[in-house]
């Protein structure tokens, strides 16, 4: 049978033979659970009993749940503060690091280190930094120079930025490396030509560097957006006593999903939230690709 195939057909058989493994993997590990999650979102299930049909009940409940809207807003706060800020900081660092020769490798390693550190360990250390006196590093410093205490985590307004700070810091290393790779790939001759023409650094940055970095920026924006939309470890570990608190002011969507699924065991409701998160991620990514791709 195989022998009677043409060379072209044989190639196709081989190609599919090799592709079968990842295809199977994705079907079992990705697509089946995704489909199942969408199915569960239309059902009620507490992990123990049988699943019963709920129709759109879970989605209606979600729409009418004030906590969900609060959490939805928080999720976008993480995105809208986190992505531009981390993009700006990482670009500034990468731009200057790129021009630096002295201890270049060492500095790059220092910036990359937080990215390799466990988010859990980092979150706990920052959590202790943020405590009031007598334990917290920041508040002890403030107290030693006679400035009043700042409630970092124990405040409905300060807690979200306080949690976002280490999350941004942790992601910087990766973004810096990507930016530096992007900067290195810009041909030197463009800069030489510009300098011969006597153009200032601002114009070089604005007219040459940034436009040519566009693919890099698109990648980092999409990548870090997905990261901030899915933020969980930092929030969970910095607020374990009252996950997402105080008063849900730091709770992102992923944490709400986790709570609903594994403390309340309301799998249907959690699945509905997951479908919403999936849709948000999809839409945000598509929109960003669209906006940043064409001129």
């Amino acid at each position, binding site marked *: 049978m195989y022998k009677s195939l043409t060379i072209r057909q044989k190639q196709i058989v081989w190609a599919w033979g090799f592709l079968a493994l990842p295809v199977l993997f994705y079907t079992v590990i990705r697509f089946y659970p995704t489909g199942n999650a969408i199915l569960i979102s239309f059902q009620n299930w507490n*992990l123990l009993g049988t699943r019963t049909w709920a129709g759109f009940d879970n989605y209606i409940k979600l729409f009418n749940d004030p906590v969900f809207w609060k959490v939805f807003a928080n999720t976008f706060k993480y995105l809208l503060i986190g992505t531009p800020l981390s993009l700006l900081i990482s670009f500034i660092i990468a731009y200057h690091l790129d021009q630096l020769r002295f201890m270049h490798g060492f500095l790059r390693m220092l910036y990359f280190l937080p990215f390799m550190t466990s988010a859990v360990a980092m979150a706990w250390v920052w959590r202790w930094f943020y*405590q009031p006196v*007598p334990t917290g590093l920041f508040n002890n410093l403030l107290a030693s120079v*006679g400035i009043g205490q700042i409630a970092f985590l124990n405040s409905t307004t300060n807690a979200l930025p306080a949690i976002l700070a280490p999350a941004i810091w942790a992601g910087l290393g990766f973004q810096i490396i990507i930016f530096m790779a992007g900067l290195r790939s810009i041909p030197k001759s463009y800069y030489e030509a510009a300098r011969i023409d006597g153009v200032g650094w601002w114009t070089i940055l604005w007219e040459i560097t940034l436009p040519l970095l566009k693919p890099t920026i698109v990648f980092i924006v999409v990548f870090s957006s997905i990261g901030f939309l899915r933020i969980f470890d930092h929030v969970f570990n910095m607020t374990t006593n009252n996950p997402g608190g105080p008063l*849900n002011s730091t709770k992102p969507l992923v944490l709400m999903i986790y709570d609903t699924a594994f*403390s309340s065991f309301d799998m249907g409701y959690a699945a509905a939230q997951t479908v919403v998160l999936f849709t948000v991620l999809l839409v945000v990514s598509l929109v960003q690709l669209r906006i940043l791709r064409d001129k």
Partner: protein
Amino acid sequence: MTIRRIPGLARATLFATATSVAGLLGSAAHAVEIQYWQYFFDARIAAMEQLIEKFEAANPDITVKMTHFPYADYRTKVAAAVPAGEGPDVVQLFYGWLNDYVDAKLIQPLPADVFPVDRIDAEFFPMVQAMKEGDSYWALPTAVRSLALFYNERLMEEAGIDAPPATLDELVAAAQAMTKLDGAGNVTTVGLTAGMTAQDHHWLREVLVRQMGGEPYLDDYTKVNYDTEAGRKALDFYTGLASGTPPATSFGFMDEPQAAFKAGRAGMHIDGSFRIGALAEIRGLKWGVAELPAGPDGTKSNYSSYWVNAITTKAEGEKFDASVKFMEYIVSDEAMQLWLDVVGELPAKPSVGMTEKNANDPVFGPFIRGLEYAHTTKFVNESAQRDVLVQMVDKIILEGGDPAAALSEAAAAEQKIIDDAK
């Protein structure tokens, strides 16, 4: 050829006969094997191993195989295994999960001839009756937990207090005496720890509300009843702890109440009996335990929670009989004493707990005495119901909200959680 074949055949026949005889003998003496599942916690595993050993020695025809895995996977594994006919015959579960297990038909009622309701009612501490439905019990605990007041002996001495507070007024006075402030007025040592995320929500719910003359829930915990005068008094007392001069406490001090107490930065700390082990390991910390302070009219109350053992629906026939025997053993006086000695969890029966030795034990005594008047909240979703009270206090402390309004909102929110779970 033929001569040699015959002995071969004979040997084969002999062998076959021998193995089938051995097989027959084997099944005659064959022991029933039952499975016991619990979550992983060193001391609990050690205690259960000892119990199984003693049980098997007394019942040579039964073997018990224990399986344990991390707490986080517990529910999903049990849920997947039992309906598939795998997994435990006797299972340990948190009392708050009972309804889910019953509804999912994962466990069966204990046989009333071996565990008659009136006898269990009489023999166990009263809060165990939360496991009863109609003419039978669904599950029974080997050990229970309750709350008590831990105190730091060194800080008490420094403040000139010679005995732990016995009433709420004494509690506040002692806490104020032990609080330390720095030059800027920041609290550096609290007299009493406070944090709704730890055990304080139980203290408020089942203890303070009752001590102010209220009843936190009605109709078998289906109706929230703390949005009352008593509830407001209890909440005012609790949040007021942070506002005296000097304050008795500071909310969120050192992140976690138990951390402040462990670090010697808290004079007193309300916590469960499960904290004893962790505190015993802290070097240089001298601490004692007292019963929770009584209310203004002398009312004493406490909160108790526990893990229970139940027989799953998988156990049938001889496995069911063996499981019943095993259940009988692990809720016996002997098992409870062993559990107290090895794990440090409190006996579920007065016959073990209220012995001269146990009830007057300097560490376990106050917890065990608390069991006599303890209540067990029938949660439908403990973490969600806890969050309601956490948010109530946050609204008052962090946002300066009106306590009465926050209390009403909390009561309504918790009622909704209970109603939705029906």
